[in-house]
């Protein structure tokens, strides 16, 4: 059974006014446990409106969201508990830190769930370890930390709730390559260890290519594609026409393919590209030897 599912999900902003705008239009999708899904789409394509309905921050105009088979807006559903199950990390989450110490800030979520004592302490330490924060950071004010560290505190605050579904809205925006790699590596480790569902909104196709198992493309308030990363990046041309950019490597390989060279499709990482080129060159060499 899908852990997260939508049926005819539609969200309209300011209905009945001249500013009426349907940001999510009749979306039907199912996510399975264990996937790490990259969500891509240009600004205004409906990504953020979609994910904000997954943990009940926005109530759909029509249609249904199911978490673990439960309609989250059903009469007897408990939306507060749902938010513990579906953790949402916003863009620039470091602006939401507010406690006096790093430790207290991470504790805020699990404490609200009613967790106390040793269990609380264990969760804080576990979450801090996931994002690479050490004991020496615990008693510091979050405002003394660097931008990248602050962001990791904010993410730890959500991880400490041990959500079954973790949603991150552009967790690497504004970070340098090292900071990006670090946070994405930690998210990937978390995903591997917990086996839950992770949804990752990103503008960086390179990052999605490296870390995600599947990719969801939003365009004009609708789902344009939901498939394996290989299959999605095989449509490099279409992605570009939507205002997205395919990874450089996939653009190189679609050019080679257009020029009639026998390259495989679905190549978008440096590693795979290297293998493919070496394989083709070796083939040529073998032919020569015979």
């Amino acid at each position: 059974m899908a852990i997260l599912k939508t049926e005819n999900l539609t969200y309209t902003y300011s209905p009945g006014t001249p500013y009426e705008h349907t940001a999510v239009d009749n979306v039907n999708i199912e996510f399975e446990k264990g996937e790490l899904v990259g969500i891509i789409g240009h600004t205004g394509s409906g990504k953020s409106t979609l994910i904000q309905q997954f943990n009940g921050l926005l109530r759909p105009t029509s249609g249904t969201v199911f978490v673990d088979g439960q309609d989250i807006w059903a009469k007897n559903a408990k939306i507060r508990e749902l938010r513990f199950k579906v953790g949402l990390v916003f863009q620039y989450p470091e602006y939401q830190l507010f406690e006096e110490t790093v430790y207290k800030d991470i504790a805020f979520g699990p404490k609200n769930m009613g967790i106390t004592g040793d269990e609380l302490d264990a969760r804080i330490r576990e979450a801090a370890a996931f994002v690479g924060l050490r004991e020496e950071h615990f008693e510091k004010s979050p405002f003394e930390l660097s931008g990248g560290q602050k962001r990791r505190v904010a993410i730890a605050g959500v991880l400490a709730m041990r959500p079954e579904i973790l949603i991150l809205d552009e967790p690497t925006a504004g970070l340098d390559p090292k900071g990006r790699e670090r946070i994405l590596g930690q998210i990937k480790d978390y995903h591997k260890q917990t086996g839950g569902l992770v949804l990752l909104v990103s503008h960086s196709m390179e990052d999605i290519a490296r870390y995600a198992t599947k990719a969801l493309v939003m365009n004009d308030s609708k789902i344009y594609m939901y498939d394996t990363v290989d299959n999605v990046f095989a449509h490099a041309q279409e992605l570009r026409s939507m205002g997205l950019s395919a990874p450089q490597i996939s653009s190189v390989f679609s050019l080679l393919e257009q020029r009639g060279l026998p390259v495989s499709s679905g190549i978008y990482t440096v590693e795979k590209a290297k293998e493919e080129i070496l394989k083709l060159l070796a083939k040529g060499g073998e032919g020569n030897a015979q």
Partner: protein
Amino acid sequence: MEKDSKIISIQNVSFSYESTDPDNQQLIPVLHGVSLDIHRGEFVAVLGHNGSGKSTLAKHLNCILLPTEGTVFVDGIDTKDGEFIYDIRQTVGMVFQNPDNQIVATIVEEDVAFAPENLGIEPAEIRQRVDDALNSVGMYKYRESAPHQLSGGQKQRVAIAGIIAMRPACIVLDEPTAMLDPKGRREVMSTIRRLNRENGITVVLITHYMDEAAQCDRVVVTDSGKIILDGTPKEVFSNVELLKDVGLDVPQVTELTYELKKAGIELPDGIISVEECADKLEELLRAALSEK
């Protein structure tokens, strides 16, 4: 008098911040003896990871920060000379990362008029400058819009127009695309390139996007408060190992050619564009496959 071809000359500049911790008052050094000349009409990218000193360096270019040691000359004027601070700020305009923090008015054209109004320019001249500036960033048709109705890329172009309206000789942009989506990034980059090529404005672009640096004439790489590389994009991106060591990426195509070379395949150094990479690989593959 003939104008010096150097618009900015940074001479042996060091800079330290004062620690904000009251119990531990010490100086935190950020720049160490940096020297750099920027010539009129150049399009220079400054690359470096967070904390490498690139933004601190940028803030020295229009008197937001003054060097602890050494000197910065803007159009021949020492930035420490307080008398000329407004001249320097008219010569070098700054654009920052977050467009929302830079827009002050509720209507696009009023926002762009803000700086020339402050400079005490005649109303008719202001009208002309605002129209020119909005045209040059492709935002003229939005002149009567409210900034909050615009996309991130559009807002950033309005912020750039606000600077252009002062008619600066040089603009310094500190990660202007970091908060934008790919479309917004492309809009802003093509605007900057056009301002450089068509209006002859000197551009200093602080970024950590390698593909943006690859579009510039010259790339300067900072690490630990020093300049470690300075050259054309091709020259700089040939140093794959060094760039990775200092926490930077290289463009995917550069990395691929580097990896292939390591595996013994003959390819030129410093391939930075998709077309160039595809051309070279096509050559290689055709040669190998025709040997069959």
